[in-house]
């Protein structure tokens, strides 16, 4: 774990809300999320699958499908004037933001790599698109631990770990100051997970900001500077990693940590709610041992925790 | 066969997705068309040979909404009777195709194994042939007639039905209730009639309905080529063929109405069936792409 002094801001997300219109239903994918991340900071957004955390990454890149509506702002700082990622038009996003200023390490690299192209082709194409044609594809590949010969394979010929490394190399190639990593470790075994995490950490130490979206708390504990816990489309706790892992304050975060194999290994009772049908108040209340009548209203966030009965108060 | 299955699954299904209004209109059109065909002789009796040389090739007017043809017959009037013939022949031919397909698929699906492989190979063979050429060949060898046309449709259109019935039976065979029936001492015939048929029949009915426009098309094409129904059984195809001569003399309306009727009835059938098909399982949908 590294502690970095955060002086400036790379990305400031404020009140980000995403809804999907489906026939006969509205999906509450992301609700009123406010987060900031600074250069050199690694923010881990943690939550169970289906809580809306992948939508966050796609929203920031302007890649949501046509049936999505987005509100809020997400100001990207860095060279030049700040850009609101949620309001910028497609042309700005395509020409100046995606890849160049915000990189994405995609979920499931197996499907994220174009099946009819070799790794070398994909890498060179990406380098060319960002006027870095002089940079050698093999050098970039070596940076993530891929041998030159691996680059001539097609995606279906790569192992899961190699595909992940290639996908990471593709995101790193344009050298973006902000990196979104969407579940980069799913489906990998432990050594590969650690290698991938270390890559992201190294990236951070070089001054980039990284948002690591994951369901893997152990991964977050290994590399994160700050942790944001997401439950049913909202951030329920957002605190520095050291403090968080020492004593989570939201009952859900607490239960998540308790569910880890090296802690009490106790599963959380019940199921997460459907994003099409969220309660008016705290969405965790039905599963929460401390829930009271107050929990029928939405709690406000106080010192990084959105809960009527934060755990620290009782300790 | 890995790569073949890969490709099969990637072929999307083209489907009409009519709205509620569309389905209502289509149903109304179909009901009206069928009713008009059924009651045509009562509503508007027709002497097929009613030739009136005093009113040859009259342009559409109030008296003759679709004009008259080169023998002075009212085109709208003949179209009604042409549709009657086309729909009837189409329905009977679709039924014949379903019976052939049902038998082949039924044998393949119940016996399985080597018989199944052989029959499916035959299905693939016929699928690779140009249908119209094959249809023409069949009609030619039997001499153009009503029976030849029906057989021509039947022998070229049974493939999808055979595939549906076969895959349906093969999947049913692995279901527990069939095992239960067999271990309960039910004979093969009893299992077939009591347990398998009720599951297959609705899909057969859908397949038959879907087949009707195809059958009508096949018949119409043959009749247009002069290889289909004899003149006294004039169908829409015969009429379009007759109209070809009038067209060159400037009477464009002789072929217009019969063609329009084919288009409208085909679209209406497709829309109604699309709604029906959506309730069936995806495997059948893939097979019945329209």
């Amino acid at each position, binding site marked *: 774990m590294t502690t970095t002094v955060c002086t400036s801001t790379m990305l400031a997300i404020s009140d980000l809300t995403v809804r999907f219109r489906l026939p006969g239903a509205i999906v509450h994918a992301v609700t009123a999320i406010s987060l900031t991340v600074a250069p050199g900071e690694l923010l881990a957004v943690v939550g169970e699958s289906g809580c809306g955390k992948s939508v966050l990454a796609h929203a920031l890149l302007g890649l949501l499908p046509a049936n999505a509506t987005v509100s809020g702002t997400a100001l990207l700082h860095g060279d030049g004037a700040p850009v609101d990622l949620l309001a910028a038009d497609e042309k700005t996003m395509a020409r100046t933001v995606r890849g160049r200023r915000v990189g994405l390490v995609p979920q499931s690299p197996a499907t994220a790599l174009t099946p009819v192209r070799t790794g070398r082709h994909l890498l060179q194409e990406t380098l060319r*698109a960002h006027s870095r044609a002089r940079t050698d594809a093999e050098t970039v590949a070596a940076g993530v631990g891929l041998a030159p010969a691996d680059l001539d394979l097609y995606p279906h010929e790569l192992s899961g770990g190699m595909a992940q490394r290639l996908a990471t190399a593709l995101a790193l190639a344009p050298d973006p100051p902000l990196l979104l990593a969407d579940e980069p470790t799913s489906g990998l075994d432990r050594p590969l997970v650690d290698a991938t995490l270390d890559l992201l950490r190294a990236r951070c130490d070089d001054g980039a900001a990284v948002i690591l979206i994951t369901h893997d708390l152990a991964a977050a504990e290994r590399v994160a500077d700050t942790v944001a816990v997401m439950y049913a489309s909202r951030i329920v706790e957002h605190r520095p990693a050291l403090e968080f892992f020492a004593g989570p304050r939201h009952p859900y975060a607490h239960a998540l940590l308790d569910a880890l194999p090296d802690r009490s290994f106790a599963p959380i009772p019940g199921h997460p709610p459907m994003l099409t049908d969220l309660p008016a108040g705290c969405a965790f209340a039905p599963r929460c041992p401390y829930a009271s009548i107050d929990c029928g209203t939405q709690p406000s966030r106080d010192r990084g925790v959105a809960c009527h009965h934060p755990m620290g108060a009782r300790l | 066969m890995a790569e073949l299955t890969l*490709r099969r699954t990637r072929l999307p299904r*083209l489907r009409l997705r009519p709205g509620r209004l569309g389905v209502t209109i289509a149903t109304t059109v179909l009901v009206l068309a069928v009713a008009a065909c059924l009651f045509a002789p009562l509503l508007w009796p027709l002497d097929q040979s009613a030739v009136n040389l005093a009113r040859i090739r009259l342009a559409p007017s109030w008296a003759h909404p679709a004009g008259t043809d080169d023998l002075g017959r009212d085109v709208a009037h003949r179209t009604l009777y042409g549709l009657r013939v086309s729909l009837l022949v189409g329905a009977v031919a679709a039924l014949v195709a379903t019976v052939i397909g049902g038998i082949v698929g039924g044998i393949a699906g119940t016996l399985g194994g080597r018989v199944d492989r052989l029959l499916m190979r035959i299905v*693939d063979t016929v699928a690779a042939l140009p249908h119209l050429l094959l249809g023409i060949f069949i009609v030619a*060898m039997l001499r153009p007639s009503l029976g030849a046309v029906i057989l021509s449709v039947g022998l070229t259109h049974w493939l999808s039905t055979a595939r549906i019935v076969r895959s349906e039976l093969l999947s049913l065979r692995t279901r527990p209730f069939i095992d239960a029936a067999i271990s309960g001492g039910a004979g093969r015939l009893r299992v077939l009639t009591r347990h398998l048929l009720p599951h297959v029949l609705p899909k057969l009915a859908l397949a038959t309905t879907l087949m009707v426009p195809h059958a009508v098309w096949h018949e119409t094409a043959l009749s247009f080529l002069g290889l289909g129904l004899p003149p006294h059984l004039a169908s829409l195809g015969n009429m*379009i063929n007759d109209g070809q001569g009038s067209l060159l003399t400037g009477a464009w309306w002789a072929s217009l109405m019969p063609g329009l009727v084919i288009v409208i009835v085909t679209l209406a059938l497709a829309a109604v069936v699309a709604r029906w098909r959506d309730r069936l399982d995806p495997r059948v949908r893939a097979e019945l792409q329209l």
Partner: protein
Amino acid sequence: MVRRRLLVAVPVLIATSIGMFLLGAASPIDPAKQYAGAAAFTATSENLDQIRANWGVDDPLPVQYARWVGNLLQGDLGWSTSRHEPVTAVLGARAGWTLLLVSTALAVVLVSSLVLGTLAAYRRGGLFDRGLRAAAYAVEAMPVFWLGLAAIAVFALSLGWLPAGGLTEVTATTTSAADVARHLILPVGVLAVSQAPWFLLFVRDSVAESLRDDHVLAAKARGLPGRTVLFGHALRTALLPFLTLIGTHLPELVGGAVLVETVFSLPGLGAVTVQAALGSDFPLLAAITLVTTAVVLTANLLTDLAYTAADPRVRLDG
């Protein structure tokens, strides 16, 4: 894969020939009488018997079949009873025009459906997309021969822009390419329009779906230019099944060609097929069906090869 395809193709051809032969044998038509033509009415039964003996019509079926196939393999496709010339001569004089019609129409269909379908997918749900899909469904419901007559009525008779039929001007003494091209515009156009809906809707759906594919989103997220994303990533994978579609759709294209040739009185195989059918000319019909089937199977093989070349996931295995 090539070998496997050939292993399928040969039995298909054999099965087709047996099927056709049996149908021909079951036919109530007496080939001897046909051969004699109008002379049959005056010919004595001894004459007819002579012809029958020459042709071996009364031999057992397997013998007849073996003889027929043996002749086919030696390049002797038989004698056309409806045209009174060798079948090979008929095919030689006519097949070229049909091939020209079908291949030009196929090219037009492919190019236009690729362009229009991709445009519709790119602006999915827009006015152009909806209009195009409505038009495609409407055209799909129109019989090709009716479409042909409509085209003649509008473009040839009413507007007078293009000839209504034939391959050359009646007054022309030689066949000039320009003249032929002018005469082919309508038939090719009609055949292409009637076949286009299937391809068009396929491209549209396939591309629209692939624009939401993981690898296309990932390519976009890398900041690649829109054109690179579309052509290099979305179309490449979306259109792979298109190759297979061409193969499976060829038989229908052939059927359409027969009808279009009839409507526009083109001297291709279509018109001869109808003539042969009316005259129950077994040798000619059988030859046309077999040759067409062989061409369709070859085309299927070619599309499979193209597929293998275009998709590294599919490898030639065998």
